[in-house]
């Protein structure tokens, strides 16, 4: 698996991708800094809604992961090198796992770094709150990664579909439609933040902490299994 992990790292760390990730990851940090330094400090609820929920959990994190995760397999499908991997005696999960870990290794530092720095600035070095933000976003990172890696295997338009999902589902519908909130990764990230630090994120978290943990584990497992299954049943180009 080490070989495939290194291969994945190499494939996912192009110069432009790193630049785009750096810019995206910087946005919430800069935004938080500007707000805190502003003439009218926002209410905590406002900050949680705008910067953490909408921006970080609902936009920046999924955008970075869709740019990385969906091409973990997507590029190999596109340039027809996937057969190099699938025509090996490795069990299929041993092909999927390095792709998922590679995505986490590349996208993770940017997203977690962004979450940590944003929380650090916004919550005035409150360690519990910072840890809650970082952990909640981290679990969201796991869910988004397993989802977008799978998406890269099922469609050649994974980035387009992923962007639609982020904008329409996570960004729009899940914020307004009650029923859809239970199918939103962003909502579970917020619920986890609230679970880790009950003093905060109460107005944004609409899902129970225990349910969020169960759903997070389920989402990661289901999409990992679906990726493995897809790799077994698809026609490899």
């Amino acid at each position, binding site marked *: 698996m080490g070989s495939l992990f290194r291969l994945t790292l190499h*494939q996912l760390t192009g110069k432009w991708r790193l630049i785009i990730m750096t810019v995206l990851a910087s946005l919430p940090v800069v935004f938080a800094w500007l707000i805190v330094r502003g003439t009218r400090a926002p209410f905590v609820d406002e900050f949680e809604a705008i910067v953490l929920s909408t921006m970080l959990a609902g936009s920046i994190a999924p955008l970075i992961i869709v740019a990385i995760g969906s091409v973990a397999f997507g590029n190999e499908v596109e*340039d027809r090198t996937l*057969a190099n991997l699938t*025509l090996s*005696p*490795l069990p*299929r999960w041993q092909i999927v796992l390095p792709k998922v870990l590679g995505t986490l290794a590349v996208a993770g530092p940017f997203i977690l770094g962004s979450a940590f720095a944003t929380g650090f600035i916004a919550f005035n070095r409150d360690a519990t709150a910072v840890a809650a933000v970082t952990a909640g976003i981290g679990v969201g990172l796991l869910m988004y990664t397993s989802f977008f890696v799978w998406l890269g295997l099922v469609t050649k338009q994974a980035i387009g579909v992923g962007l639609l999902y982020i904008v329409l589902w996570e960004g729009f519908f899940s914020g307004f439609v009650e029923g859809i909130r239970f199918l939103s990764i962003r909502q579970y990230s917020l619920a986890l933040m609230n679970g880790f630090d009950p003093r905060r994120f109460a107005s944004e978290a609409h899902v129970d902490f225990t349910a969020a943990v169960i759903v997070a584990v389920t989402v990661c497992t289901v999409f990992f299994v679906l990726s493995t299954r897809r790799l*077994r*049943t698809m*026609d490899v180009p």
Partner: protein
Amino acid sequence: MSGTNPVVRVDGVSRWFGSVVAVSDVSFEIGPGITGLLGPNGAGKTTLLRMMTGLADVSDGSVTLFGQPVRDNPALYGRLGVMSEHETVYSFMRGRDFVRMMARIRGVPDLDRAVEKAIAQVDLTEAADKRMGTYSRGMRQRMRLAATIVHDPDVLILDEPLNGADPRQRVHFQNLLRRLAGDGRTIIISSHILEEVEQLAETVLLIINGKLAASGGFRAIRAALDKRPYHVRVIATEPRRLAGHIMQLGSVDAVNVDPDGALVVLSNNVRDLQVELPRLAQQASIGLRRVEPLDDSLESVFGYLVER
């Protein structure tokens, strides 16, 4: 293959994409040695090979390798080496690293020795530490072949492997494949070039329009091809006098004189005509300026075989 267990068995295999039938009810068995899969572009060779490697599913029928289904059977892939027609490589990777990675994920035990041996076999030792993005097309193909054979597979399936190879590389490639086949391996190569398969394969499978048009030893198929009606264009110093002589040959059915003075000869046995025509022209003191086949394309050869 009767009496022995075939290495590869393709049984009633079809594959369709929507309403398009790419491969239709194809059955054959393949044993050790080199087998050529021959057919024009778009005949269904690649689809068939992809089903034989398990990369693509069959719509109907079955493909087995050593008696086991090849689809979704990773354990079997350790015995299989596949080189697809797509020449894309990891351009950022050095050749040696690519072969090493392929060896590692195939569980090759003595990694260093196997990698060096495979690279030496394709005669690329000196270029092994260059990035594959800097390779010529022929070098990429050879390094891909090294990665295909590094785990010493029992079965090699190579889709248009000689694409991009220069004449010297072709000879090297062919010698290597013969050597590998001589060790008892089963090698299947596809090509749309008749001569390429003729030089390598003992057995030929002719695929046309997704169907198996003919199979067997190359000589028998070649003989069948030689007996087909065949148009030859002849440019001579005295075409009308030559036409009169040609009509007396048993291998000729008809002769037409084109407005530009060229003769178009319809032969029923082109091999005999090849021998008789120069002799006849010499006896009649007629100069032959040009003799060229008019329907020697693979498509026309295959067309004939399908119509038979």
